């Protein structure tokens, strides 16, 4: 299993799907571990009844069906599929509506879904997902990207309320890829994935959605900056080490 995770860190991110299928077929006994630990790009189904799309993940799956956050029904239909409690479902509906607006403000398009379910500790778990296709043929407003995808998965474990406070643990994964392609500079492709965690103990005065939303917003901004500055920055540093720009050409001592 360790070897499998090692491989996933080295294989180019754009081959994640192929790599995961390959590992699943080589290690069928580890399939549930692999599926829960390896991040894969998100897939989407259309909920015909509501006319909206929703995102698929392990958290809205039961057997081979997936539950739509818009209608609370399983696709394909499933008898006795797992459903959140009435109260939690109310929260889930509100979260989906608000998150859709947040998503539109930052992503200018894309698809979002929120799923909630009770956990064993009298708290609950919420999963916020966003999928954005930024390529110029899809929803890339400015037409820069030949290909571009941002997939975000935020899982928040919310502890039970205790004296007006609650414990929140957020685990976020962002997977992204972008490709620009033009005459003068050829194909330029960056892709990657990172995962981070954040723990907070907050007052529930303004409600769970407010708390969770703020945490996610902060985390997404941090991840965006990190990817841009640190991660992509390191690859740029590497290119300039391989072949320093003309202005800095000098003989480096032989190591």
């Amino acid at each position: 299993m360790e070897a499998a995770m090692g491989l996933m860190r080295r294989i180019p991110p754009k081959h994640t799907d192929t790599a995961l299928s390959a590992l699943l077929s080589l290690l069928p006994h580890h399939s549930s571990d692999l599926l829960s630990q390896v991040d894969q790009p998100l897939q989407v189904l259309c909920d015909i009844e509501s006319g909206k799309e929703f995102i698929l993940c392990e958290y809205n799956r039961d057997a081979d069906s997936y539950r739509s956050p818009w209608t609370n029904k399983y696709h394909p239909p499933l008898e006795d599929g797992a459903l959140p409690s009435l109260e939690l479902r109310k929260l889930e509906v509100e979260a989906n509506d608000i998150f859709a607006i947040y998503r539109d403000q930052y992503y200018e398009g894309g698809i979002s879904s929120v799923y909630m379910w009770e956990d064993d500790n009298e708290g609950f778990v919420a999963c916020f997902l966003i999928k954005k296709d930024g390529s110029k043929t899809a929803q890339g407003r400015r037409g820069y990207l030949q290909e571009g995808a941002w997939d975000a998965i935020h899982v928040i474990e919310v502890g039970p309320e205790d004296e007006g406070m609650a414990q929140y643990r957020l685990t976020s994964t962002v997977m992204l890829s972008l490709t620009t392609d033009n005459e003068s500079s050829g194909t330029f492709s960056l892709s990657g994935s990172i995962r981070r965690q954040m723990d907070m103990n907050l007052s529930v005065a303004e409600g769970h959605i407010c708390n969770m939303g703020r945490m996610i917003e902060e985390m997404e901004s941090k991840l965006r900056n990190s990817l841009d500055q640190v991660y992509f920055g390191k690859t740029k540093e590497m290119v300039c080490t391989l072949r320093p720009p003309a202005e800095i050409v000098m003989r480096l001592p032989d190591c």
Partner: protein
Amino acid sequence: MADVEEAELSDKQKKEIAKWFLLNSPAGEIQYVSKDVKAILNDEELYNEAASEAFPLYNKSQMICLEMPGRIGDVLVTSFGELKENEFLDLRTAQVAIVDHIKQVCTGLRPALDDELPSPYVEEFRCSLDAEILKYVGEAYPKGVCSVYCTKGKDVEGPGSDFDLVVVISAARLSPQNFCNGSWRSVWNIEFKDVEQILELRGKLQVGAHYFEEGNVQLDAKHECKDTTVFQSPDDCAITIASIIRHHETEYLASLEASYSNLPDTTFKDLRRKLPVTRTLFPWHNTLQFNLTRDLTKELGIGK
């Protein structure tokens, strides 16, 4: 994400998967990948078969650079210099390196035979070009290795026939302790056209980088370019070719830098803005605004 069937894969299928992982390793990481693949396969014989097929392909495509015994220099492992699966020609020293692909080392050396080398006429051009490229690479690449091969017409005796040379530049920077590896590969095909008295150059540049400290990010960039110049004496050809290559590669590096500086504010924005258009954080607590926007959202059909 349906439940995976527990059907056993055939040995052939397992071998193909192992090869796929090996071939898709980033620059300089095949040895690490191979350890993981070996552990997962759990079948030494099958792994060895896969490795013996994958390593040569990987080494040639990555254009790895191996030290030749006797400190006479380095040899590049490329399809252009390949005489046999494990024999690679180094024209600068007129030696043939015997290579162990899986261990990625040069295990032996022998002098090149006359018929493995280009004719004296072609060699004059090749040698002058090699010297110029060596100078260029020494200046532009801190750790670059280069080679010039003849890919067509190596037995051409004198003027009256066409021949082709190829310039290969390979630079790799491996820093696994810093979780960062990268490689730059240039392949320049040069057609020496006798009748038209011109040289046609076609360059393919490929740059890759991998950073994997608590994450996994990779750069994959490619570019193709063309140029033409007149057929001159070997020395003059060499100087002109080297300066054309230097010009295009410098320009390419500049455009890579430009792509990077466009990222934060331009390119990335098509994926996710830094802030909403309002330039403030999202007002999570303002439910009144939500009710209004929710109605608007429904009316305008946004959020589909």
